[in-house]
């Protein structure tokens, strides 16, 4: 699997993504600067976490207009898989690859912890190696992770199987108690309609080896390698 990681001014988890991709695929991904206008031929594009442009206007809003994003959108339309993590989720949402918006966490504070998530749909290369309904723990580290779409869109996402992960209690309940940041319908990550694009707030790339004390994220990368190699 060949992958590219896009780097914006203020990205800060691009190294984490590179390390997780390289560990899973054995191939070091390309790092592509946001001002570039061309992408190498790849099977996967990762838009990593961080604070692109300081999140000063609105998280992801500036980066969504970086030159490279035109090419990312073009590739996504051709079916190239795109994974947006944390700030990357915010960026691809702002860029229109996914519906919705990420607002400030309901508690108005940054949250960093290992959070329980439920895998909602395994019919994608991103989630194929999980079991439907499986409760996993991914680290979260964000201030603006409170996902919102209107009720009709929530229904559509549910009907189309576009909800990838939900925040849950340790027991797996998608209840208010399990809702980490106030997201609508406890949504932690969503697909596009064709399930070729995944955006999620949590960080599977920081849960891939023994040092992390949590390897629940590894299956996501292993699944991509299996499907795209």
């Amino acid at each position: 699997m060949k992958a590219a990681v896009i780097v914006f001014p203020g990205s800060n988890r691009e190294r984490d993504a590179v390390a997780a991709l390289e560990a899973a695929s054995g191939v070091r991904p390309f790092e592509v600067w946001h001002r570039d206008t061309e992408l190498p031929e790849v099977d996967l594009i990762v838009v990593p976490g961080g604070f692109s442009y300081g999140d000063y206007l609105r998280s992801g809003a500036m980066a969504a207009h970086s030159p490279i994003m035109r090419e990312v959108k073009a590739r996504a339309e051709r079916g190239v898989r795109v994974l947006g993590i944390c700030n990357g989720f915010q960026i691809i949402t702002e860029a229109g690859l996914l519906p919705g918006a990420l607002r400030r966490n309901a508690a108005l504070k940054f949250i960093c912890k290992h959070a329980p998530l439920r895998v909602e749909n395994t019919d994608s290369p991103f989630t194929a190696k999980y079991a439907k309904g499986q409760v996993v723990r991914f680290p979260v580290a964000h201030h603006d992770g409170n996902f919102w779409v209107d009720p009709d869109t929530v229904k559509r996402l549910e009907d189309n199987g576009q909800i990838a992960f939900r925040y849950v209690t340790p027991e797996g309940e998608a209840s208010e108690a399990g809702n980490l940041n106030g997201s609508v319908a406890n949504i932690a990550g969503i697909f596009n309609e064709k399930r070729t694009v995944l955006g999620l707030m949590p960080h599977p790339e920081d849960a891939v080896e023994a040092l992390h004390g949590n390897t629940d994220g590894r299956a996501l990368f292993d699944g991509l390698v299996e499907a795209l190699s």
Partner: protein
Amino acid sequence: MTKASVSENEVQVTAEIAAEHGLTPEEYGNLLSILGRAPTMTELGIVSVMWSEHCSYKSSKFWLSKLPTTGPQVICGPGENAGVVDFGDGDAIIFKMESHNHPSYIEPYQGAATGVGGILRDVFTMGARPIANLNALRFGSPDHPKTRHLVAGVVAGIGGYGNCVGVPTVAGETNFHPAYNGNILVNAMTVGVAKADRIFYSAAAGVGNPVVYVGSKTGRDGIHGATMASAEFSEDSEEKRPTVQVGDPFTEKLLIEACLELMETDTIVAIQDMGAAGLTSSSVEMAGKGGLGIQLDLDDVPMRETGMTPYEIMLSESQERMLIILKPGSEDQARAIFDKWELDFAVIGHLTDSGKLVVTMHGRTWAELPIAPISNASPLYERPWEPTPARAELPADLLAGWNQPLGKTLETLLSCPDLASKRWLWEQYDSLVNGNTRFMSGQADAGVVRLPDQKKAVAVTTDCTPRYCLADPVRGGAQAVVEAWRNLTAVGALPLAITDNMNFGNPEKPRIMGQFVGAIQGMADACRALDFPVVSGNVSLYNETNGEAILPTPAIGAIGLLPDAMIATGLAFPAAGQTIMVVGETKGHLGQSLFLREILKSEDGPPPPVDLAVERRNGDFVRTLIREGIATACHDVSDGGLIVAIAEMAMASGIGATLPSLDDQPPALLFGEDQGRYVITVTPDKAADILMRAGEAGVPVAVLGTTGGNALVGGKGEIVTIAALKAANEGWLPGYMAAAE
């Protein structure tokens, strides 16, 4: 320079104006005789910050020189932007801790945020990629009306800055005491990694070489911040808000990446960040260290406001700026890197052989100061001091008739502000970014961060027990160092070196100066005995409001080496059925203990004695057990004593323990804060062997019990459930912060 050659549309400097700039009559007299004339306003501003306590260390320098600063592991000791330690295999660890106390009290979010930004720059300016942040925080009484607001602001500021720049915040400490009501302490520490043969220093060289300004534009923020940090607070401190700087972590992140990219080229002669006193201290220090002069043309300084005077430009403490001396002809190569990162890059002057700082703007000369005479004349005071009187021992019958239930006492203690879980804080810090964090706050006695693309890791901690330092500064100073050493040892690391952040009151008072002198003595003794030199540091004096001083707080930041990040111990019980042992002797010292303060409401007695030889012997024994893979968890015994250490290991794991003889012990043995102790767990088959080896090594080791269940259970039955302890321990801070003001 004759007076006529200086710009004349400035105010005439008088003795009164000099006094308003914090210069004593004697210091002003010195300046007049060096110059042979009255200074210009710009010159007075420059000299006043150079001679401020914050920049000159005039009260502390004499005593700081008593600290050991050398050792085979030291690559660069105090005097540079940060300390540099050999980390093996051609790697170096660069680290320092620095205070941002005064600004954080006035404007907690920006004060704390720029404290983080400043210490990051001190580390990456020497060529290191920052890999860990820590912070040591001291707040006033929770009952004080400002405390909640200050906690919220400081924590948000640390997170707002550290999270954005992508450096994990992995460890720290937070205390509360009424002595900090008017002066909180915010001490920030950064640890970075570099190649030992690619360290960058600040001494300028090469007459004619370009002086380059990079980073953010200069504004009017932070003017006279260094001077503010060199005076006591009074009722009008709120009016000092304009002297607090404003941070921009996004620009800092770009500056880190741009500087590290520039450092991979062969273009840099010297580099320094513009910290306290901004352009003044960076230019004077760089030229001064190189024995050169420097010519600055302020017309070329990137500015964010119009109409700034040379005085304002030279004293601005706008953040995220660096000064670089480039090799001649390399300007274009360097500029391309800063263009890529969308940062300002401007050649603002050059080095000269005049030995003078010359500042020009609008075609005029605004300052012409001989650097060496002014630096050398920087005041150095050996201030009068008096030793702190020894505290009387506690009465022998202190606990006669005391028969409170053990479980309830433990719950009370674990919910007191100093021992309560600080999860509410640390979950607002990104502790995981970069994917190299093995242990963060709450998981182990020290943060453990793996070096990028390597197996080995650096262990990091900050420590100080201010109540000990107040009661006996010598003992307290030594204890702060040994606790840092123990915390590194408890994860299995070999302690290498420390940075100190000396927070004290007004040094012009002999009683306060005596605290400083005593703490230095205790620290120096401990550093020598443990081969644990001081490689960097910072002094923050005048932490007083209306004459009330803080507790003496010599905060110690320390680093240690772990050859393998995966061979390290956390503090959580790893499983049920493990044998719990205590290493070190329990005598029952209750003076200055948290039990005494929180349960018996007394702050009496001397702090526990520190036996440096015993510390070393016990610590070396524990570290060996960890490195051999025998110890499965480890926690040093400190605040709250032995039973609190056990409870913390139980809470971290959710696993209880059976401790057959525990409930028969007198409280002093359970809650006493004797030093040199660790609680470890091992698999039961290893216990006998450990006891034998301990006997041979002369290390007191005792078996306490076995892990398992969901409660602490003594010989007489259940003492308390782990759930009850967790509720008490985890509940206090969130409850406090959520309460209506």
